[in-house]
């Protein structure tokens, strides 16, 4: 027999296979079969055979070779590289345009499920990288649901400890391990047909992890504005389904964990209420479910409330957030609002509950969402345990921004002003300063701290939106005697209007402290101009006052009063018919008068007329700018009328 020194037998056979590939694929395969049967324990030959099948694009044959390789040579590094390629391809299956990945995925399908299972498990066990290990196990569970009951709990443990020890910053619930745990593994575990053995402690821990994760995601997506309506909706749905799954495992009240069939906030609230009533009767009832269901429901309501405060807008328009502020009443006006009967009937016995108004009927959801939050919050705070547990959960959740706003709204609603002030004063976030000052101003006014009002008003003034002009609101003042809260849109006009209204009322109400304050009257004339003629009613009594004192001096007149109606009334007072009231409203005129002769009086009259004419000519000036100037420039004089 000839000895072929130059080439090993196995290399010869493989080489023949490769040579034939281009000429005769059948022959190439025949050579390959021969090679494989000659050298069944030679990795090189078997692997080459696989590579040849792979290069030829023969899915089935490659799968066969690959299966053989896995069972015969599980320890060879080169095979591991190929296995890694396969698992990598499997993970990118959905977006795999790459031909090799596509081939490997197809090949995987032709491998017997036993070998598939083995492959994934082996790979996972060989993986030094925990993340990789978890991903592979997950892949295994996705493909072999029968493995879920045995490997699922193990993977839960791995992911939890990986999160605990494997991350530099393990406080952030949005991390890759948590994502795998919550978004990928939990849905697998939640499959109805899977039988799981998890302790209730672990289940509650899982629920907590999921809550943290989803609520933080909501917090994050909030920052990037509302384009993701749908994805946010799915986040809630996912969160609910986790609660449903865990609740089912823990045998919770089915009504409390069903968020899908005919679900509405109102019906769920009724279920919660009847559940709490049941609980009081039966103390043994596991109240973990209330501790989770109520907060989740509350946070959902809170989320919807926070969301409804920034109503949907037409494309291209600016988003306009709304904030709940203390608004005004006018007892002389007819009570135009319908009695909020239903609210009263629901056992909210406190008749001092204020009316809540919105800008437009379509924003009614702000009000209803708010009231549902109030219900929940009242229930949570009604029990010390509930409140304590909620605050514990809340600590871990990234929902502080919603909650801190709501707490202020809630305190306002309940008329607990000091509490509201305390909360507001903690706010330092520059995005929230405007609403902080707005609401402080409103509260100080209600508390009759008139002089304290000015500071927040001026601070708010500096923060007026520059790109959202808006309109004057019609609902800031209502009739009746009940307190009135309003969801104020954050636009330049609405805020200015609100601030001016507060200041106007502060000045007016402060007048009783003084005998005859011409300065205050002048200020009021300036302030009523913005929302004219809505604030017309302030004027007649002031005119009476002037008449009584027969003289009116207001040096800021020519700067800030351009309302024709007001000027007409004043001019009338000046006329003989009006009582020839002495008006000192033209700059320098007074001083001139004092040194002038009687003949000069006539010139002075003419000068007054001229001045009035000049003012009338300005009557088309922009009132918002005028008032902003007034407030900014005349701070000391305004303050005088507030002390």
């Amino acid at each position, binding site marked *: *027999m*000839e000895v*072929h020194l130059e080439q090993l*037998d196995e290399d*010869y*056979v493989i080489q*023949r296979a490769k040579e034939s590939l281009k000429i*005769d694929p*059948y*022959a190439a*395969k*025949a*050579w390959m*079969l*021969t090679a494989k*049967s*000659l050298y*069944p324990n030679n990795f090189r030959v078997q692997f080459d055979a696989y590579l040849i099948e792979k290069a030829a694009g023969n899915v089935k044959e490659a799968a066969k070779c690959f299966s053989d390789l896995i069972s015969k040579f599980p320890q060879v590094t080169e095979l591991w590289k190929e296995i890694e390629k396969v698992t990598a391809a499997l993970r990118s299956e959905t977006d795999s345009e790459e031909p090799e990945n596509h081939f490997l995925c197809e090949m995987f399908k032709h491998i017997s499920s036993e070998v598939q299972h083995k492959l994934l498990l082996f790979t996972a066990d060989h993986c030094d990288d925990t993340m990789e290990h978890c991903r592979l196990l997950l892949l295994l569970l996705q493909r072999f649901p029968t493995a879920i009951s045995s490997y699922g709990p193990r993977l839960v443990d791995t992911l939890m400890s990986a999160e605990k020890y494997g991350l530099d910053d393990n406080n952030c619930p949005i991390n890759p391990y948590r994502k795998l745990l919550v978004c990928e593994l939990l849905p697998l575990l939640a499959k109805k047909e899977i039988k799981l053995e998890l302790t209730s402690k672990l289940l509650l821990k899982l629920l907590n992890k999921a809550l943290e994760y989803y609520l933080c995601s909501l917090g994050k997506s909030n920052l990037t504005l509302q384009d993701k309506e749908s994805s946010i909706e799915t986040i809630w749905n996912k969160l609910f389904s986790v609660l449903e799954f865990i609740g089912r495992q823990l045998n919770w009240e089915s009504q409390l964990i069903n968020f899908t069939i005919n679900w509405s906030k109102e019906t769920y609230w009724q279920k919660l209420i009847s559940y709490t009533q049941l609980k009081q009767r039966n103390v043994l009832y596991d109240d973990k479910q209330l501790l989770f269901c109520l907060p989740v429901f509350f946070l959902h309501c809170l989320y919807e409330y926070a969301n409804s405060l920034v109503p949907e807008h037409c494309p291209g328009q600016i988003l306009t957030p709304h904030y709940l502020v203390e608004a005004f009443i006018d007892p002389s006006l007819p009570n135009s609002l319908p009695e909020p009967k239903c609210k009263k009937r629901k056992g909210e016995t406190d008749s001092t509950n204020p009316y809540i108004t919105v800008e437009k009927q379509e924003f009614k959801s702000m009000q209803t969402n708010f009231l549902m939050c109030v219900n929940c919050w009242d229930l949570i705070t009604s029990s010390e345990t509930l409140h304590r547990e909620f605050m514990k959960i809340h600590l871990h959740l990234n929902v502080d921004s919603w909650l801190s706003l709501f707490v202020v709204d809630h305190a306002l609603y309940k008329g607990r002003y000091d509490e509201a002030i305390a909360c507001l004063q903690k706010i330092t976030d520059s995005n929230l300063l405007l609403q902080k000052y707005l609401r402080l101003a409103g509260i100080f006014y209600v508390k009759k701290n008139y002089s304290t009002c000015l500071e927040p008003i001026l601070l708010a003034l500096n923060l007026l939106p520059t790109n959202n002009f808006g309109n004057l609101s019609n609902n800031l003042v209502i009739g009746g005697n009940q307190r009135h809260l309003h969801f104020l849109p954050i636009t330049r006009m609405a805020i200015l209007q609100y601030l001016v209204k507060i200041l106007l009322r502060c000045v007016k109400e402060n007048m009783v402290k003084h005998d005859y304050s011409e300065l205050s009257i002048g200020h009021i004339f300036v302030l009523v101009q913005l929302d004219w003629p809505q604030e017309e009613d302030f004027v007649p009594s002031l005119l009476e006052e002037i008449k009584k004192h027969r003289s009116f001096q207001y040096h800021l007149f020519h700067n800030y009063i351009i309302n024709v109606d007001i000027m007409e009334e004043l001019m009338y007072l000046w006329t003989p018919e009006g009582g020839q009231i002495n008006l000192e409203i033209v700059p320098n005129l007074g001083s001139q008068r004092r040194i002038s002769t009687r003949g000069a009086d006539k010139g002075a009259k003419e000068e007054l007329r001229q001045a009035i004419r000049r003012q009338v000519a300005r009557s088309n000036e922009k009132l918002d700018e005028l008032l902003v100037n007034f407030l900014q420039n005349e701070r000391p004089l305004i303050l005088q009328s507030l002390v």
Partner: protein
Amino acid sequence: MSGSSSEVNLKQTLRKLEYPLCAQEALKKIAELLCARVTNIKSMDLSLDLMAEFIFYELDRRGNKRCPAMSSLVELQLLQILYEFLNNIPNEASRNTLFLNLFSPITVNNRLGVLSKLVSLAIGIPSRSILIAASTWMQQLGNTSPSSCKLAEALVFDYAHLTPNTDDKLKNLSEVAPEFTANFLTAIAENYFIPNKESMLPPDVLLKCISDWVTDNSKLCISAQQRQALLPPGAIAMEATTPIAGLLRWCVLAPLYQHEQQIYSKLYLALLNSIMEIPRVNPPRAINVQHLTVIIQQLLQYLQDPKNKELLASGTNAMLQLALDRFGQAIQVALSVNAVYGHLDELFNGLNHLPNNRLLNIVIKRYNDSKGGPILIV
């Protein structure tokens, strides 16, 4: 030719019927006689008489040979009767029993015409029942026996020569009756690549059909062995020879006869795949080593032929090397799955006489190294 009165009566009654109408009645009676719970020599004899006189029209009432034999039209009527009757026997054992008796080894030479037309009909229509009976028949008579080979030749004539475009019918055959197809293939393999025979090479239509069959179903070759035929009580089932060795012989020899190669390459790979699919059994039963040795002999004959001497002298002839490569590959693959039975040493001794080929050397070396090793030689 005498018998009991009931026998006489029976024959008298049948004689009143015209041929071939009487064939139908005779078949009923024969089926009854053969498939009765208790059969005896007498009823066997009677059924043979009835077949000869009333079915195949070979003898007259006095037992004399009829001359002339039946006309084509009458034969057609007879075929229809046979087909209908056999096809409608629900019990497979009864059907096989009747079929085996109708075309018994003693009588088949005379009845081969009717047999081949009947089977041809069963392929064309098709009738799985009759094909299974035919398959059983081939197996019991030996699927490489002259009768089987003649049947195969007649069928190939019908389907590859007379109607070469009806390859659909043939194509489906492997699905309709794989066990028949396997036996059919074994017989066909014997009919070609016989040196100095007039039509030495298989027709292209047939070749293509076979390579498709074997490619599409890698278990086809062993399907006759996989299915136990239902036989008359007391009959000994004969082992079917698989077509593997026979068809391998074609593929190994094809390069030497300069036949178109691609199709053989395909068929050859299909055969290798079929070998890989052979279930491991001990002792092996799929390939008889002697059927492989035949290939060596034929190769040697070819090389010793003065016409082909040149080829041997050069020793590097690509076609010869291809033939040897194929042979070596097949032996290696067959041995690796333990599919060969018989004295392997004989085969390897024979291989040593073949011209030098590196793969053969490797295979021989491998065999020598492994002797007494894990490969079981029976």
